[in-house]
Structure formats: structure tokens, C-alpha cells
């Protein structure tokens, strides 16, 4: 038998064993196989469509009060029934979706901005800067954050903009930690060294090389922080610190529904279903994205 090594021919070297796939195609392929993630994605798309088009199509407005029609059960005219001021609940739930989704997305984007900047700088420069910056994060991590969101809302007065500010200011810590860990791991790799040798500036290294390569965990964290923000806003509205009337987020609708739970349980049902479905959608999608984007990161 002949055990001498095979001489590689040009043809062998060029033969592809599987088609070349980019990061995005690869992730999409893996996501498509995950039925729960696809279900989550469909829920989110469906609710976003309702949020955008629902209030436009509806013959009622979210704030029109018709006291003669108060507390009606679901009917052909009012699909979800009406609330104690005669406002159409279907319209209010769709409008609430706008507010709640906006809060989820804007608050998460603020977290993303602060977290990426903070974590990126900390991880890139390392050394003493890193240990001081991470020490600060550790200390903030020890604080029960929800209490401080509540306190901030007491100080800032309820309102949509202030919900953005309170949530954005408080919840960036996890994003900062994840970005920092990614950057720390990547910056010793050869392609970064190569870029540095070629004279790339720190800003270009961070934003052009390190962050794009940490996109997977960042997207996952972002997806999972949207439902968290929606949840916290619902909680705040529930204790009377969220957006102010006549604006209605799902949390406001739920807390109004609790008051009339005994006589008109359907008034709580709709916002409760909407919140839970949205959370479910984002959680399923987030889990699926985690498996699709970064198979190594499990939790």
C-alpha cells in the first residue's frame, strides 16, 4: 500500500465543498430552521403592522369619548368592546402598540448607543481605563435598577419622553459588558493587528473592525432588551408613572382594566394578551437569533 502524501492539484485546491455563505445568509438559513423563532418574528411583524395601520383604518380615534357607549362588550361595532369612557378598545390597543413598541425600540437604541460606546472604549483601551470603567459598571450593577427607574420617573414627572430617558439612562449596563467582552476577545486577533500595522486609527479599529465582528451578541442583546423595556414601561404605567393620559400604552390599558376586572374582564384581557404575545415574540426571536448568530454563546 502506498502511504505517501497526495500531491494537491490545482483542481483539488479550487474545489468548493459547500457554497460560500456570508454572515447574514448563514444566520438567516439557521434562523429559518427554527420554528419558534419564525413564529416570534411573525408575531412581531403582525403587531407592528397593527400598530402602524390599526389606528389609521379604525373609524374611531383612541381618545374620543362617547359616554353613552361606556363599557360595551365586544360587538360588531366595537370588536374589542369599549372602556369606561366609551372609547373603542380595539383602537386603543392598536394605538397602545405604537407607544409600547416605540418605548421598547427607542429605549433599547439608547442603551445600544451608550453601551456600545462605553463597552467599546473600555475593551479597546484595556488596562487601567478598562478596570476603572468596569469597576463603575460593577458598582452600578449592584444597585436595584428598577427602583431607580421608579425614582427617576418620580423626579422627571410621567410622560413618554421621560420614560425614554429613565429607561435609557439605567439599562445600558448589560450591553456595555457584552460589547467589552467581545472587543477584549477580538482585539488580540491577527486581523486587528494587521489593521493596526496598516495605521488604522482607534476609531476606525473600534467602529470598522471590532464592532462589526461583535454584531451577533449585540443584536441578540438588543432583541432581548426590547421586551424588557416594554415590560418595565407596562410596570411603570401600572403604578401610575408611565405615559400620561389620554395617551395609552399597554400598561395604562392594563391598569385601567384591573379596576373594572370584576364587571368587565374583557377590558383587561386585550392589553394583557397584547403584552404577553409581544414579549413571547421577542423572546422566541431572541433565543432563535442567539442560536443562529452565535452557536457558542449559550445560556
Amino acid at each position: 500500500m502506498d502511504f505517501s502524501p497526495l500531491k494537491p492539484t490545482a483542481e483539488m485546491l479550487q474545489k468548493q465543498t459547500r457554497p460560500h455563505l456570508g454572515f447574514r445568509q448563514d444566520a438567516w438559513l439557521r434562523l429559518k430552521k427554527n420554528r419558534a423563532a419564525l413564529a416570534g418574528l411573525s408575531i412581531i411583524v403582525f403587531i407592528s403592522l397593527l400598530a402602524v395601520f390599526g389606528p389609521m383604518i379604525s373609524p374611531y380615534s383612541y381618545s374620543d369619548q362617547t359616554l353613552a357607549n361606556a363599557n360595551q362588550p365586544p360587538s360588531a361595532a366595537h370588536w374589542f368592546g369599549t372602556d369606561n369612557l366609551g372609547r373603542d378598545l380595539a383602537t386603543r390597543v392598536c394605538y397602545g402598540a405604537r407607544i409600547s413598541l416605540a418605548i421598547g425600540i427607542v429605549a433599547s437604541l439608547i442603551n445600544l448607543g451608550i453601551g456600545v460606546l462605553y463597552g467599546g472604549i473600555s475593551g479597546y483601551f484595556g488596562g487601567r481605563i478598562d478596570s476603572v470603567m468596569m469597576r463603575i459598571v460593577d458598582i452600578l450593577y449592584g444597585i436595584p435598577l428598577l427602583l431607580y427607574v421608579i425614582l427617576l420617573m418620580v423626579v422627571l414627572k410621567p410622560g413618554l419622553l421621560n420614560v425614554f430617558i429613565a429607561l435609557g439612562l439605567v439599562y445600558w449596563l448589560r450591553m456595555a459588558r457584552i460589547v467589552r467582552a467581545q472587543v477584549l476577545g477580538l482585539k488580540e486577533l491577527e486581523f486587528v493587528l494587521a489593521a493596526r500595522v496598516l495605521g488604522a486609527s482607534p476609531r476606525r479599529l473600534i467602529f470598522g473592525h471590532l464592532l462589526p465582528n461583535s454584531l451577533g451578541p449585540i443584536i441578540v442583546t438588543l432583541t432581548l432588551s426590547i421586551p424588557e423595556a416594554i415590560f418595565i414601561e407596562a410596570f411603570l404605567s401600572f403604578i401610575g408613572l408611565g405615559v400620561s393620559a389620554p395617551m395609552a400604552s399597554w400598561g395604562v390599558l392594563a391598569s385601567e382594566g384591573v379596576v373594572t376586572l370584576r364587571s368587565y374582564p374583557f377590558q383587561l384581557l386585550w392589553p394583557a394578551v397584547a403584552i404577553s404575545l409581544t414579549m413571547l415574540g421577542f423572546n422566541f426571536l431572541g433565543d432563535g437569533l442567539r442560536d443562529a448568530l452565535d452557536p457558542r454563546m449559550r445560556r
Partner: protein
Amino acid sequence: MFKSIVGRILSMLLVLWVIITVTFVLMHAIPGGPFTAEKALPEAVMKNIEARYRLNDPLPKQYADYWANLLRGDLGPSFKYESRSVNEIIAEGFPVSAELGLVAVTLSVLIGIPAGMAGALYQNRWPDHLVMLLATVGISVPSFILATLLIFCFALWLRILPAAMWGSPEYVILPALALAGMPTAFIARLTRSSMLEVLAQDYIRTARAKGIAPFTILWRHALKNALLPVVTYLGPMIAAIFTGSFVIESIFAIPGLGRHFVTSIYNRDYTVILGITVFYSALLVLMNFLVDLAYLWLDPRIKPEGED
């Protein structure tokens, strides 16, 4: 070991200092004093009130006074209820909240860990799918919604449990279930994934190759290592249960600390808000510290300096 414990105590004190200072600053950043009511009070009355609560002193002096009182364990008087101090309010509400919280924590550990283990053992078969589905639903349903559903089912429809109030043990069941829902789901997910990781390791294969019974492997070899991440989560979980109890206590009309907190927010009763925040935060920081200690003791591999 000793050095790292001292380090943790120091950082705990630092956290407490930050908490108290931030809370103090936030409370004093509120536009208008706590006595700016709809009906304007006569100026003389206002002056008297402010003098009584020392709101006219310069801020650094108020801060120093607050610290001096705090170190003596005095959180000050309530602005709203004249005859009561914050200490009394806390002494009254805390035992109730603690009882509720303890039941909820116990429930979530007792249900969450076995559920997660079952999921890991039957990975990708129906028990796993069931556990993961329930757990994802569990972390998706906010506690106040779970609470109202429970009230609707068991109190209004089946009429087997009381809908609200506090007293004999059956009053604990519904609020504890509502409070435990989300942490249970989280623990189940965490246990499942860390169990899967442990079960894939070489020493488990070795144990299996030696012919040890599957149950013994799970119980004696895998469980302790798999529970480490769960222990880490206990600190934040206790925080979640405690803060979750704000809303649950309001819904179930339970006279605990959480309800006082929510009422004090409605009333804008600043000393009570400040006092309860400081108390809760201190408690949670202490819990986190204890969890850290437990972790050091459980996992000898942890580097004392706390490197990632």
C-alpha cells in the same frame, strides 16, 4: 480567600454609599417641595413646615444630617402621616413582604430546578419542548397580568381562594404564585442550559462508562456544578421578587412594604420613598454579597481577584 472577602465588603460599602447619595440627590432634585399642594399654603405656615423638617438648611448640611441619622438607624419622619416615622412604616410592612417573598423564592427554586433538569435530561424530546414552552411563556407574562388571571380563575370563578387581603395561610397562595411565575421560568431555563453543558463534559462520560446509575450521576456528579449559574442568579432573582412585590402587593391589597412604596409615590411622600429605597437597596446589596460568598465557597475554581 480572606482578601477577596474584604474586597467584596469594601465594594459593598461603596455601592451603598452610591445608592444613598444618588437617592438623596434625586429626591432633592424634584422641582417644588413636598408640601406644594394644589391649594397654596400661607407663607408663614410653609416656613414653619420647612423649618420643622429642616428643608431650609443648605443641601450639604441636610446630607450630613441625613447620614448622621442614618448611622443611628433613623430614617426620619413621614411627610404625609404626621405621627409616623419611616422606621415604623418599614417595621410594619417588612415582615409581611418578607414572608411573601420567601414563599415565592422557595416556590420558584422548588419548581424551576427540577423542571430545568427534566428539560436537560430529555433534550429535544417532548418534556424538553414542554418545559421550554412553559418557561418562555413564563418569562413573557408580566406578574401583574398573571396576578389578575389568577384572581379571576381562583377567586372570582372557582371561588376557592380569597382574592385579596392578608391573614391566614390561604391568603399567601395566589400572590406567591403570581410573584414566583417569572423567576421560576428563568430558573428553569438557566438550569436546563447549564445542565446540558455539564452533561456534555468528560467527567460525566467517565462516570457513565464506569457504570454508575443515571440517577446517581445526575444527583451526585452533575447537579452541583450545574447549579452554579443558578446560584449567581439568586441575587438578581431576590431583587426581582422584591421589586415585583410592589405591584403584586397593590393588586392583592397586602399591607407590605411594596404597597407602602407605591402609595408613597402616589402621595409624593419623599422621606418614605427615600427610606424604603435605601432600605430595599441595602437589603439587596447584602443579599448579593451573601450570594457571592456562597459562590466562592461552592466553586473553588473562582479566582479570588474576580477576573472574568
